[in-house]
């Protein structure tokens, strides 16, 4: 396509660097410095999308973040697809590949085109909610049809950065106010960040008509930007949108770092650059210099391509050298609307008329327009656009704004472009992200940010529009924000600005039509969500009075649009319909993100193998070399089982590993268990309060199993704690509970019992723990240690210090398998050496490494619980049948004790832990399976418990399970049933949870 709308000169584009791009498969041309939007307009593209609900053709309306229609799907390949890109914010690059998000009719679009008069607000609720059973089907279709773009189906080849920043002053927006603020703050020496969403810093000054110091404003911009760039204390971030303003001045900035350069981030010196960067900024002070959005006028068929914002028309002409049409009608109600006509005329194109809703006006720009002989029609407005795929004319009529009616016959002007301007709305979005409601100011006809600590709105963002005032306010705010950060004597000289005469603006939020709103052609308020003035009126008639309800009923300001263009008009229309003021009606709250943010930038470096920490034990490489399959236990990678070659199934491996432990000897890496070193004179007392059982009499050299409850009486952790010396204990916790238990101990010590002399230090990572377990454990260990392993001197639940494989070690004789066991602890640096030495000696004893699965089978055979598997925060020690581990008579009312006598915890029919033996011995019940007493009862059945652990036992040669069953401890011998999906019901007998060696003889050998 040719650049039919491009001017021969002017604008900030580089005509020496032409670019080629494609739009919906068509090849187009533009220049470096273009946005995708300016290039599309230059190529004469009228229709950029179909609308979301009614499938109406839509063209470019705006030149910035507020663009509601030109929402594109970018990407030359599947992997580089990016949805939801505003063409007005995307810099053009060579080879850019863009598609309309909604190029033609989908399902909803078809409905929309055929039945558009019948799609009222609340359409989805009314149409699709009944019958309820069909909602799932409708939802899929609606999502498919209504979606704004799609995600790539392939892995994004680019990478994304995060950067955490701290500054004294964050200036958001680099227009006149922001530049002045940053300069003032920067010169004082404060740490300053200045960000702006556009390609170039300068904002409105880049294409302003105003002169600064008698020169083009862009000259001043260049000088200020150069000075800021030279300051070490200032970080300049163009192409960076402040998307969220969160609590305590935490702001997220989204920098499109290389998105302007290509489909993929380019390589420099062999390094692939980041595509985007998310800055997490903590700012002491924020200067909000986000400017204002121009409000479009709401008139009939204002969505036909060729209807643009007046300011956008100026921007396209002055900044990009593009005149988006031939014959222009301007419709406005304030002075600034005239600028578009002046720019249009200066570009040599025809201005058909300027239609001004005010009765009279004599500001600077009006005088200039008059002097140029432009046709100005006062007291009137464009009430309706003509045309379907492009504006062909404008119907104008005189109007009475106060009475909301036309006052004379309409006439039609022939034109191809209508530029409208209803005034400006301060961009208050960020200020309301933390839930503070903007405040209406009648004098500027706009909402301004509510007062917030650490936030100073300046310039357009607080309704100040005269350039001189904007610069002054910015500079003052910047200097004020930097107070205390450095040299306060620094000041900035503001450029001279000619003060222009301006007339009073008129509040015009909906242009009256000859027909009442409900019968007039559609007057669009929110173009992105296809919300019309009639929809808002209807919503108020249907009883939606609160503005938040109107929003939800109509979808006004929904989604990625966040009400940038339509919100104020919408609020005002609702106010008119409800017969109240805009101040009383209020505004809805804008939410983060201001514009869409790529998921890649949100994830940053936290992806693939860095998504979550992988914690390794000191033996990790040994396990890996042994071919272990790993299981995630919290963040730990634990060996799950060790297939003897790649073919061995998990079942076979576990059978082999279980047999090795029961018959010979096995080795488990237990280094992941939490270990807490506890020292102090009061450790015994402290343990007695924290654990359910007694610690007064535990002798030095002995270990004891302990159960920990929360004060509600529910089991929270367990483990073996050892008395190393009278004032020195070592507590072990579950793998997953280590951090939680340490915090728990600190909690009670710091908040309830600070008088106790006790301190806790995590030594989980310090010690590596190897469990040697099985009938041959003693003979194996004896080969590599100087410790006397005699069964009568080193007894069950004892510990010793000595050398193991030449390494100083602490060895505990404790058992989680029920077999003769030694837990060898060495400083982790030596774990690999000790492990290798054990296996050098272990062959002749059949030493076999085993993983967590075998560990689970072996402990379950013994009826040992796993906290978090047999318990779920609702299980007491008594429910587990562990009364033997409860010190009912300890003097201190330990944590959880009182709760064991609460009526709910004493109920006889509580779920209690039992063993289950399936009647069919080869059945392994499903963990989590629900249990019923009577399998014949009608559905829904009364569920009386569930299976918590279930395995096949190679030792017993049958399936077995642990379960929680109502009143189970008194039901030993009874039958229960697990009805499974597919109609199968498994029967099982309630048995003791100890399936193997109930007397515990094997660990005592």
């Amino acid at each position: 396509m040719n650049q039919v709308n491009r001017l021969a000169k002017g604008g900030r584009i580089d005509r020496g660097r032409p670019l080629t791009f494609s739009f919906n498969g068509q090849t187009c041309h533009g220049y470096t410095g273009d946005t995708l939007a300016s290039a599309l307009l230059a190529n004469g593209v009228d229709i950029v999308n179909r609308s979301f609900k009614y499938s109406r053709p839509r063209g470019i309306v705006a030149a910035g973040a507020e663009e509601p229609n030109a929402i594109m799907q970018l990407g030359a390949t599947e992997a580089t697809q990016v949805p939801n890109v505003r063409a007005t914010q995307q810099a053009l690059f060579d080879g850019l590949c863009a598609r309309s998000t909604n190029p033609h009719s989908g399902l909803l679009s078809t409905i929309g085109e055929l039945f558009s008069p019948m799609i009222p607000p609340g359409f989805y609720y009314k149409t699709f909610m009944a019958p309820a059973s069909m909602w799932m089907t409708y939802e899929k279709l609606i999502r498919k049809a209504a979606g704004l773009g799609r995600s790539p189906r392939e892995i994004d080849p680019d990478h994304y950065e995060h950067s955490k920043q701290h500054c004294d002053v964050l200036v958001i927006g680099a227009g006149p106010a922001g530049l002045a603020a940053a300069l003032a703050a920067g010169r004082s020496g404060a740490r300053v960040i200045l960000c702006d969403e556009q390609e170039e810093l300068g904002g409105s000054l880049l294409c302003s008509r105003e002169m600064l110091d008698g020169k083009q404003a862009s000259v001043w911009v260049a000088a200020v930007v150069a000075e800021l760039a030279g300051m070490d204390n200032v970080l300049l971030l163009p192409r960076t949108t402040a998307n969220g303003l969160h609590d305590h001045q935490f702001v997220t900035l989204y920098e499109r770092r290389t998105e302007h350069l290509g489909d993929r981030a380019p390589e420099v010196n062999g390094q692939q650059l980041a595509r985007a960067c998310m800055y997490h900024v903590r700012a002491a002070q924020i200067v909000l210099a986000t400017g204002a959005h121009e409000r479009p006028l709401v008139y009939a068929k204002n969505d036909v391509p060729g209807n643009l914002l007046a300011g956008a028309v100026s921007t396209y002409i002055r900044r990009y050298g593009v005149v988006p049409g031939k014959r222009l009608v301007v419709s406005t109600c304030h002075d600034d609307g005239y600028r578009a006509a002046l720019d249009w005329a200066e570009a040599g194109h025809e201005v058909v008329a300027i239609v001004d809703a005010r009765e009279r006006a004599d500001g600077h720009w009006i005088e200039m327009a008059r002097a140029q002989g432009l046709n100005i029609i006062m007291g009137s407005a464009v009430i309706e656009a003509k045309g379907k795929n492009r504006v062909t004319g404008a119907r104008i009529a005189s109007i009475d704004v106060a009475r909301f009616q036309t006052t004379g016959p309409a006439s039609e002007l022939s034109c191809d472009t209508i530029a409208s301007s209803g005034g400006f709305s301060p961009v208050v979005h960020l200020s309301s992200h933390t839930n503070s409601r903007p405040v209406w100011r009648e004098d500027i006809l706009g909402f301004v940010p509510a007062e917030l600590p650490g936030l100073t709105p300046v310039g357009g963002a607080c309704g100040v529009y005269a350039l001189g005032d904007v610069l002054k306010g910015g500079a003052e705010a910047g200097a004020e924000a930097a107070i205390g950060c450095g040299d306060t004597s620094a000041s900035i000289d503001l450029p001279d600005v000619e003060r222009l005469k301006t007339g009073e603006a008129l509040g015009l939020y909906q242009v009256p039509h000859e027909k009442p709103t409900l019968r007039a052609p559609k007057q669009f308020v929110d173009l992105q969500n296809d919300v019309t003035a009639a929809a808002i009126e209807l919503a108020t008639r249907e009883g939606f009075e609160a503005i938040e309800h109107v929003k939800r009923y109509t979808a006004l300001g929904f989604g990625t649009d966040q009400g940038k263009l339509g919100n104020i008009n919408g609020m005002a229309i609702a106010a008119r319909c409800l017969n109240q003021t805009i101040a009383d009606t209020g505004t809805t709250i804008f939410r983060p993100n201001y514009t869409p943010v790529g998921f890649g930038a949100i994830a940053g470096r936290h992806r693939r193998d860095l998504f979550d920490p992988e914690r390794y034990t000191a033996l990790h490489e040994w396990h890996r070399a042994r071919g272990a399959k790993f299981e995630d236990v919290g963040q730990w990678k634990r060996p799950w089982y060790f297939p003897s070659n790649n073919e061995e199934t998990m079942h076979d491996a576990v059978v082999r590993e279980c047999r090795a432990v029961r018959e010979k000897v096995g080795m488990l890496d237990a280094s992941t268990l939490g270990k807490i070193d506890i020292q102090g004179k009061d450790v015994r007392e402290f343990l007695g309060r924290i654990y359910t059982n007694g610690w007064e009499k535990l002798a030095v050299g002995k270990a004891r199993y302990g159960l920990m409850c929360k004060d509600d009486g529910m089991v929270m952790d367990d483990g073996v704690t050892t008395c190393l010396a009278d004032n020195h204990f070592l507590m072990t916790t579950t793998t997953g509970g280590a951090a939680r238990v340490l915090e728990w101990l600190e909690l009670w010590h710091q908040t309830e019992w600070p008088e106790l002399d006790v301190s806790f230090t995590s030594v989980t990572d310090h010690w590596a723990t190897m469990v040697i377990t099985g009938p041959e454990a003693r003979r194996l260990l004896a080969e590599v240690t100087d410790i006397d392993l005699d069964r009568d001197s080193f007894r069950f639940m004892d510990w010793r210090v000595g050398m193991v494989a030449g390494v100083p070690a602490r060895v505990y004789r404790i058992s989680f398998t029920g077999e003769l066991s030694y837990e060898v602890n060495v400083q982790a640096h030596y774990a690999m050496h000790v492990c290798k030495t054990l296996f050098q000696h272990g062959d002749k004893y059949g030493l076999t490494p085993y993983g967590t699965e075998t560990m689970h089978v072996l402990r379950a055979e013994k009826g040992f619980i796993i906290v978090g598997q047999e318990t779920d925060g609702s299980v007491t020690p008594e429910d587990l049948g562990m009364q033997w581990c409860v010190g009912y008579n300890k003097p201190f009312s330990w944590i959880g004790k009182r709760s064991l006598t609460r009526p709910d915890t004493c109920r006889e029919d509580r779920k209690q832990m039992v063993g289950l033996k399936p009647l069919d011995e080869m059945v392994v019940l499903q963990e989590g399976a629900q249990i019923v007493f009577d399998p014949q009862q009608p559905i829904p059945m009364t569920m009386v418990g569930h299976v918590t652990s279930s395995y096949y036992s190679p030792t017993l040669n049958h399936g077995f399970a642990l379960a929680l069953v109502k009143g189970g401890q008194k039901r030993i011998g009874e039958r229960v049933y697990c009805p499974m999906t597919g109609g199968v019901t498994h029967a099982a007998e309630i048995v003791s949870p100890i399936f193997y060696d109930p007397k515990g003889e094997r660990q005592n050998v």
Partner: protein
Amino acid sequence: MSNVAIFEQRAADTIAAESPLHYSLHRHAVSAQGADPKEGSAVAMDERAFLGHLIVRGTAGVLRAAIKQVVGIALPETACGLNVEGGKSIQWLSPDEWLVILPPGEEFATENALRQALGDNAYAVVNVSGGQTVLTLSGPSAHEVLMKSTPCDVHPHAFPVGRGVSTVFAKTTVLLRRPDAKHWELVIRRSFADYLYRWLLDAGEEYGITTKHTENKDNNNE
């Protein structure tokens, strides 16, 4: 606290020992290929392995004199303080907790001497040498790698030499400290070491991060 059970946990030098980053460094070592060794890369990563790490707990009043006498460095009593001298360092961790880092092999003797000096006071000393290691970052872009990783302000004014904090780093916790103007130190837990190492390699890639492994070398910070 007296009446504790401690023992020399370090084995003879003939026994093979593996630092927490032993395999990481072998698996992913990156050297400055063709770079001018004088200039160095923008970020260099190194491990100071096998140092003695002692957690010392108690009040400053109880510990002050004994620490000075035994370790030879003043106890940093203000929050987030770090004192470094002659290959040893003491870092404030909380109002009643400090980390003492010593040259390899000195931890047991130091613990005994401290216990001797502290007598029957309320305090605790715990050897955690096997559970953590020190990773150093140096080079002109080191702070930028840190800014990708931690919410702490690492601007030289906000994080001067002699400051040390316990903070969030990537998705785990580290002790981050500045022993001198040229180095940052990360005291990291053994089990997270490989994750953090891979994280830093990835974050440092754009600066051409290099690694070198120096076990048992002289432990001066310079």
